[in-house]
């Protein structure tokens, strides 16, 4: 369906969303990549499936901007894993992103109008 679309379009869209989801997930505490992916999937009741090919570059990018801090540690499974935690500027960013998302959802909702195509 979307295979003919230029990849960059979908990326831009996903990028903002994924960043927000990651930041929100980490608000609860440090977590490793697979844990973040699982958390997003579970909290959304399997509605959102994180594409791993995007998750790690996103983590990388967020870390590069200084919103996340990555550190190697040992997971509950006794395996080595790279844990990510929010930095102070990450928390600020999360609030900004969340507010922007709310504004976006609000705006889009207004356009669609109440009751449109709702199950």
């Amino acid at each position, binding site marked *: 369906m979307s295979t003919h679309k230029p990849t960059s379009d979908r990326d831009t869209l996903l990028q903002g969303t994924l960043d927000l989801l990651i930041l929100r997930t980490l608000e609860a505490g440090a977590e490793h990549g697979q844990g973040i992916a699982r958390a997003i999937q579970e909290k959304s009741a399997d509605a959102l499936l994180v594409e791993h090919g995007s998750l790690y570059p996103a983590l990388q990018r967020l870390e590069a901007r200084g919103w996340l801090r990555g550190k190697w540690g040992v997971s509950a499974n006794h395996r080595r*894993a790279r844990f990510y935690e929010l930095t102070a500027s990450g928390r600020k960013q999360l609030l900004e992103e969340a507010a922007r998302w709310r504004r976006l959802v609000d705006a889009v909702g207004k356009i669609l109008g109440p009751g449109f195509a709702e199950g």
Partner: protein
Amino acid sequence: VSVLWRRRRSELDFAEEIESHIDHEADRLMREGMSAAEARATARRSFGSVARARERYRGAKRRQWLERGAEDLRYAFRTLRREPAFAAAGVLTLALGIGFNTAVFTTLYALVLRPLPLPDADRLVTLHHRFEGRYGRAVNGMPSMASYPEYQEYRERARTLEGLAAYARIGVTLGGEQPLAAAGMLASCDYFDVLRTRMTLGRGFAGDECDRRADGVAVLSHGFWVRQFASDSSILGRTLTVNRQVVTVIGVVERGFGGTELQAPELWMPVTMRPRLSSGGESLRGTMLDARIGEVAVARDQPVDDLSDPNQSWLSLVGRLRPGATPADARAELTAVARQADLAYPGRITSVDVYSASRLNHPETRSLGGLGVGLATLAITGTIVLMACLNVMNLLLARAPVRQRTIRIRLALGAHRRRVIAQLMTESAVLGILGGAAGLALAAWLPRLVLPRLPLHGLQLDLSPDLRVFGYALAVSLTAAVVFGLAPALETTRIDLASAMRGDRVGGRGLRGSRLRQAIVAMQLSGSLALLVLCSLFVRAVLHAQSSDPGFFIERVYGLRPSLREQGYDATRAADFYRQLEQRAAVLPGVESVALAQWLPLSARSVAPLVREGETEVGSSRLHVSYMAVAASYFPALGIPILRGRAFSQDDARPSNPVPVVVSAAMAARVWPGDDALRKRFRTGSRDLEVVGIARDARTLSLSDPRPLFFYAPLQLGFADPDDGGPVDVTLIVRSTDRASIDPALTRIVTEIDPAVVTTLESLEQRVTDQIAPTRLAALFAGVLGLLAATLAAVGVYSAMSYSASQRTREIGVRLALGATPRAVTWMVLRDGASPVLLGLAAGIVLAAAAAQLARGQLFGLSTLDPIAFLSAAALLSVTALVAMYRPARRAAGLDPAATLRSE
């Protein structure tokens, strides 16, 4: 720089993170009830487009290779830290191999390459004669040495040399209330100038002191000054009595200066004092130098004054090159000078060799002193490095399946294989260098362990590591890293990507990997077998040497050797001295028998070419025989039976022509094969000799020579023989009930006869122990290394067997399902693993036989193919290998066929 690193995470780190993700996902799937393999495959599949993840991660930037190298290095250290057991095993193995090898190298380097610790030592050279053609020459020391006129000629005419000094060792006795034996050195006048010796006190020799009629002077070594004169600074101007000559102390050299030789002298005197210091101008001809140093004295024909004899080898030469001149220049120039001297000796062609000065210079000591043995040892320890490499290679291969998981991802991420190999090799290099560093530490410590156990004393040998030693160790370490790292790196990265992504374990590399490991096992076994055989050969040789009859008594036999020559005794006075000594010693309580002989057995040798009666030319028979002068009482005192003919009588103790001699059975058989040796005549040097008796063979020269070509000449005390001047220094041999009772008594007798004479009692058993010491040490090292190697080989056998059995799990399952008994399966697996083991053992036997041939000199006549040594070592190793093979085989037989088939 570290900030930069922290900010930009490495590709490797990223690959690991992804691997960790897949692991966690697989864990989760397994909790949900999936099998391990299935969970992994699913986790991997669901990860999705790894390549794209990587592309985004990497961005467009290309990294510099330097940064990559740093990253590889960091990663390598982290990997090793994360696997401490693996790292420790690898480093330890390498350290042992490289340590032994570097220790041997350090010793050889210190002996023949390392510049002397003297100012501008790189311009110091040593000069050595090489004679060819037909010639006769007196030798006091080594044939390559120079005469005093030759030295003067070279010093005058050499334009390539700034200075040229000559020196010769001389044993001296310091007179006084407590006479003292010391190591003396005769040195030419400019000796200290050429070597640029600094003085703690006073000065070196000045021109007029080197006149042969000048009053005697001496320069002391720093250590001797501290020990004997309590660092007394008023020593200058004091007189000492040295070999009955009065000498004035004019200087003390700086601390640490010990001349150019291996053994540091304690005092130096002008070389022109030689005639006075060695009794009355008489030549030292007939002096037999210590066989342990490997020097050989050859008979001379005419007694001449040492300083004017142009055809006598006794002086060592050391020169200083002019700036810009090379040893080759000096060689050409001095050889030309020597060829002019050849005009007086038709048939002689002389060359002068010029080497950079080091501790071991004389070609004779280089060859006899064991340079060949040293190089062989270097080669043997080199094979230990190889064994260590094989072991580390085995470890790396065993780890390969684990490493491959990360590597597969990296390759899937699009990394070049070359890049991954470079990273793996960096890891090997780090391992190699760590091993090398530990090895260097071991190499620095080993000589301290080994040298005191060898019968060597007071050697000036600098064994501390310098840049060249470091360079050598580094080169060995890196070579080792390539040897053990390359094959596993190639093997680990040989991954079929498609099957890798499916999560297959084998991926086409199984067979190659197991072949490689089998080859390694075979090589390890052969190396350890060779070492174990050498060890048991050495042990057998020590036992053999201790238990086998040397042909003379050893227990409770002592030798007393007063240094009369140094005290200026002539033959007549010496004869008086010995007769008194012998008479008084014989009646001491506890003494069973006494005898006079030139030497205690096992201490020295004198070699002369032999000419049978009727032959004319020297050397036409090419037979060289050794000899020793003994009194009639020698044979009964040492228990040597005369097989035919007679022993010496009292009449033989005075000159006669021909001189009656007793030959060894071996010499009788060799020199006159198929003929009766009795009453045969022959010549050595200028003496005519006649065989009057044949004695049973005895290992008089060395324990390793059971049947020497040897004869006994009668000791003719007090009589000047035609070319000798009569024996002055001889040994009193005493057999007594115990040492304690005779030691002080004999010393007292000597002091009562002449208070100036110094002497010590030596036991023949100690001589035997000294001769056996190197072999004992060799046995210890070969044993330690052999057991180490065998352990490594056993681990190798075990892991190779386990690996190949696990590769055949499916096949074994099928066989078991079809009704094969566990016993049959055990046998099948054992048979399968046996071929590299048998191959290794066979190669090891060949290797051991070759190594034993090299070590022949240390075996005391034991056969190099001694079956007990070979069989015991082979049996030990076979049992070890069998034990290592048994468990994997049993485990294979214990497989549950249903489970193995299901898992596929």
